[in-house]
């Protein structure tokens, strides 16, 4: 991909993000922060590439360190989001909305 097509993906994703995030209900803003935290750990992709590559032991160990950190976030972030979301309950009787 050349720079312009990457930039296009980025700009369009910002637009999508803008509309998607405004549609999140304020009651779920804390889970929103937890889940965005988990998904921003997609940076693990970079960490895996560094950890898998030959040629530079420093880069490899830094990469492995980053894999640990990002994994804490991925597993912790999704797990805590799941835990929070499980707590949100509707009224037991049928809601009269």
């Amino acid at each position, binding site marked *: *991909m050349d720079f312009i097509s990457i930039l296009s993906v980025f700009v369009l994703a910002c637009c999508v993000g803008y509309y998607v*995030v405004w549609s999140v*209900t304020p009651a779920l803003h804390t889970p929103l922060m*937890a889940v965005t935290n988990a998904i921003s750990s997609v940076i693990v992709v*970079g960490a895996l590439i560094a950890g*898998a590559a030959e040629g530079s032991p420093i880069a490899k160990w830094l990469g492995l360190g980053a894999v640990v950190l*990002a994994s804490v976030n991925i597993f912790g972030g999704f797990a805590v989001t799941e835990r929070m979301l499980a707590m949100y309950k509707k009224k037991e009787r049928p809601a009269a909305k």
Partner: protein
Amino acid sequence: MHEAVAMNPWAALAYLVAGVCFILALRGLSSPASSRRGNRLGMAGMALAVGTTLVTHSFASLPEILVAMAIGAAIGIVTARRIKMTDMPQLVAAFHSLVGLAAVLVAVAAFANPGAFGILDAATGHIHQVSRIEMGLGIAIGAITFSGSVIAFLKLNGNMSGKPILLPARHIINLGTLAAILLLIAYFVTDDRTAVFVAITALSFAIGFLLIVPIGGADMPVVVSMLNSYSGWAAAAMGFTLHNSAMIITGALVGSSGAILSYIMCKAMNRSFVSVIAGGFGTESGPAGGAAAIDRPWKRGSAEDAAFLMQQAEQVIIVPGYGMAVAQAQHALREMGDLLKKHGVRVKYAIHPVAGRMPGHMNVLLAEANVPYDDVYELEDINGEFAQTDVAFVIGANDVTNPAAKTDKSSPIYGMPVLEVWKAKTVLFIKRSMGGVGYAGVDNEVFYMDNTMMLLADAKKMVEEIVKAMG
């Protein structure tokens, strides 16, 4: 442009799908009913991104990688299970710091082994110039996220005073450091020496620290949202370096999410983002209010009075704030609500956007205590109802109920949207003592109104006593 990074087209497609999964994960949060499905899609997206990366790269160090992931997974899952819901702001700040540090490590690894990341210019033996800008920005944002989040964590966790710490000439120091970072990144394009790279990193760590230290406790919702945003931009910058669409899409999503949350929080406090970042709120309010407050008459009520008043009411609106979280009063509060409902009282909860220490903090705590989410209302949905409400029950909130925000132009919180509790027939106001004023250092007119009854006690104890008095 430089020669294409050889990426398997199927891998590129898989990353794109992962990115779409993340979009749908956020989309699911538009209602509690669809939110869990969204979260699962997020997990699927992450599994796809990780799986694709592992399959398309060399397997030589697979065992080490799996061990690293297992260690991280164990720490993450145990923490997520054990954490108390009241401590969620600290946890989120801690998680942000990890994203930041991971971004820094990846950027350093890319600098040490550019060949593996496909950013090496074969002709010159140096890193591509475009990649240098992306890396420079990536490591700067990552380092700011890391050190800023560490300070936010220490403040939220109580290891560090929540009071703003003000350095002399801090604005000049901060602006100077920021300018130096940008200049160094520009210079890095022409000279990719290690020293330049190290200097960018060091200054970025320093600025993250300097930026957050002067910001006080009640501004933390903005800070946490802002760091959330930065962690996204850091991921996006690394995505540019790696030409990875999953990282770019995610970075953009998370970046805009944090930015929008910061905006919502600032608006709810009627403060500009710049003034929050400049820090020091709550220290400069001077002699206003304080002195006049000493000898004004106010009414004290008991738990029995409160129980009686609420049981006679047709509608009670409960207004929780950070004090409820500190006292861990949410479970007792729900018990009280249930008893009232048994008496045929309509019970609603009113939540101000900046109540608590992070966006949505109160909602999570009420959900934890099993309060149904359709009993919980946002500021603009419920403010009109106070006038037809018999009892407004304020627990651990103060500034967000202060009428000075509407009437007193000299007040530091003037213009902030507030919950109009004083319009209710009776206001029950739980507070530890009459001495302290809210975070903004402003006295609250509601304390002295004829229809207000002050309940002076620890929030949890008082609610438990009210529950006893009702039984």
